[in-house]
């Protein structure tokens, strides 16, 4: 047989296993991700806020009976930051701002995970169906998507939340209903593009089932933009959610940053800035962190740079 010289392979290649090679590729991506300073800042922020959310019960004692309700200490109303026991001050009803900030990260995490998680799944399925099946199914689905996209996100979410009634769960539902279309669009475009590749044809010639082809060939190559969008949305969802809460479409009195900003807003005129500012700052940091990481992720996953 004709000979091939392996100048581009080192001798250790023989000891490689599939696992190790895949790990190496994954770490390659991670390394590219961390080589960008702004991305690192975002990652650090996310790590901190994640820690806040996870360790909340240990950082501040959970409120009873419902940890998500702001504790009301009528004896310590409107205290400024620096007050012992209430380092970031208290709200009008004696709620500890620090408590709100910490537990608010939990609610934000829940909010973003539920919303992004569900929309990613729904959007991916619908987008894939539209891209794979094509024809009138595609047309119908895409027109529905167009209708959703034609309404500005915020207004739409507002309308839905208003109809459903003020509650945290309803905010999740409202946001999910608005955002899924983005993923459907992205996924459809990816599927249509990837479908044309020869390797999909090759899989068909081998005789693999359509489902397998979708799972092994199409989906893995399509996830990159979806992942990037999901990361960005983790941040933006909290932003929009906070806006809805601010308007009053969420439950009153829960430990949620938007609600806190809303409730503390009246006091600003009287000089009590702390009840709104600290939660507001957290919203900003959360959205910023995910946006930074999302952008960094987009660059790191760029197939043109990948693996060279």
């Amino acid at each position, binding site marked *: *047989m004709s000979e091939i010289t392996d100048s581009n392979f080192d001798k250790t290649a023989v000891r490689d296993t599939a696992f190790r090679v895949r790990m190496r590729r994954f770490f390659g991506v991670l390394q590219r991700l961390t080589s960008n300073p702004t991305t690192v800042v975002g990652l650090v922020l996310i790590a901190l806020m994640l820690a806040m959310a996870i360790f909340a019960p240990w950082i501040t004692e959970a409120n009873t009976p419902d940890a998500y309700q702001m504790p009301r200490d009528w004896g310590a109303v409107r205290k400024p930051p620096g007050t012992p026991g209430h380092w970031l001050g208290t709200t009008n009803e004696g709620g500890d701002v620090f408590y709100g900030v910490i537990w608010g990260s939990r609610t934000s995490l829940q909010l973003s995970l539920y919303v992004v998680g569900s929309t990613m799944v729904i959007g991916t399925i619908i987008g894939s169906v539209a891209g794979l099946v094509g024809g009138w199914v595609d047309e119908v689905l895409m027109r529905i998507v167009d209708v959703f996209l034609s309404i500005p996100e915020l207004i739409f979410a507002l309308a839905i939340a208003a109809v459903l009634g003020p509650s945290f769960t309803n905010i999740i539902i409202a946001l999910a209903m608005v955002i899924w279309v983005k993923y459907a669009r992205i996924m459809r475009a990816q599927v249509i593009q990837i479908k044309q590749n020869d390797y999909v044809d090759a899989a068909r010639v081998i005789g693999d089932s359509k489902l397998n082809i979708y799972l092994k060939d199409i989906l893995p190559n399509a996830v990159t933009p979806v992942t990037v969008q999901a990361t960005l949305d983790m941040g933006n969802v909290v932003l929009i959610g906070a806006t809805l809460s601010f308007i009053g479409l969420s439950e009153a009195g829960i430990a949620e940053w938007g609600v806190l900003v809303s409730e503390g807003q009246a006091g600003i005129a009287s000089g009590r800035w702390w009840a709104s500012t600290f939660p507001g700052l957290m919203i900003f940091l959360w959205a910023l962190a995910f946006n930074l990481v999302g952008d960094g992720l987009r660059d790191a996953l760029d197939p043109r740079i990948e693996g060279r």
Partner: protein
Amino acid sequence: MNASPKQETAPSEVLLSISDVQKYYPIREGALQRVAGHVRAVDGVSFDIRRGETVGLVGESGCGKTTLGRVVSGLTDATGGAVHYNLDGTLSQIDHLQDRQARQFRRNCQMVFQDSFASLNPRHLVIDIVGRPLRVYKEVSSGDLVERVVELLEQVGLGRQHLYRYPHQFSGGQRQRISIARALALNPEIIVLDEPTSALDVSVQAQILNLLNDLQAERNLAYLFVTHDLSVVRHMADRLVVMYLGKVCEAGETQSIFDAPHHPYTRALMAAKPDLDDDRTGEQVKGLDGIVPDPARPPQGCRFHTRCEMATPVCGWEVDDVVRWLEDEPGMFEHLSGVERQSEFNAELAFDSEEAAAKLSMAIRSESVPAAMKSALKRLNLKGHKVDIEFEAVDEVQLTARDGGRLASCVLDPAHVAEKSQ
């Protein structure tokens, strides 16, 4: 001489029989997406592929060879005609096969694509790619998979050290080897190769072609070798099918076609790119004028008549030829206001002025129009600002059988075609 003769013994069995395959793509227009016509990518092609032989499918871009390759391998269904596969002795249509039989066809008919980079999933390792056919058909237990894949890799000139690598880490030639290894995994009887070496350097191409030949000899593989490169196909193929605009213009034994082509298009292909060994100098290069006609409206009679240098009056001259010729003549096309067709051969051309019409009727009789077209004119009447033309109606030129198993669709005498020497 060249190719070592293959199987001089009894003719081998037919593996695939392509009979009158058509593949039309609908052209949709308008808001309701009505079908306005069809692009006739493949328009009635028939030939057989026997066990162990290489059939070369040659033509330029737009001739339908790639589409035909895809129909043969089962990637697309034919819109007319059928591909028959030899299943345990009987020929059955591949789009009618069910379950077990369909799987058997799939396993026995594999494909290698042109773009080695696009035909390998960039996220899969070589073990995944080459091992996939084995996994799909549950050929081997997961323990044996690695060994089977290594065996396959070694057969194509790669090795164990390539198992856990991604496609982008290989060169074009190596990727093509991976593709070939994947195609071999299930021990197929026939492999469809769609321009497998067109994107490769000459020296790498030589390696791959040698590999393909070795594999064919070892495994008695049949190949359908689709390419536009005559020198490659001459080297590789036992028999040749030359396509133009969806139809076969010539088919037969490779060597005899190269010695004496019966169709002017085949002749043109050969003249356009002579052998490297040819000592003839630059003046001998001949190209073809004109462009490939629209496959949705193929020319009448012989599809090649619009570009053929040896066209005769019965080659299918039609109204469209006059319109095409008008388009190329400066100063005439702008004055054409309409064409009223009674048939492909009979129409009235309306001009915006009488003098333009008169100009046309004079020009058609002049030197700038091919003599064959002039002779085919049955009637040419000038009626004010309209010109009425009618050509002799001819049927589509069919493939006729010649000596030695040759087929060609040309009305000319083969001796005449051969005599037009360079």
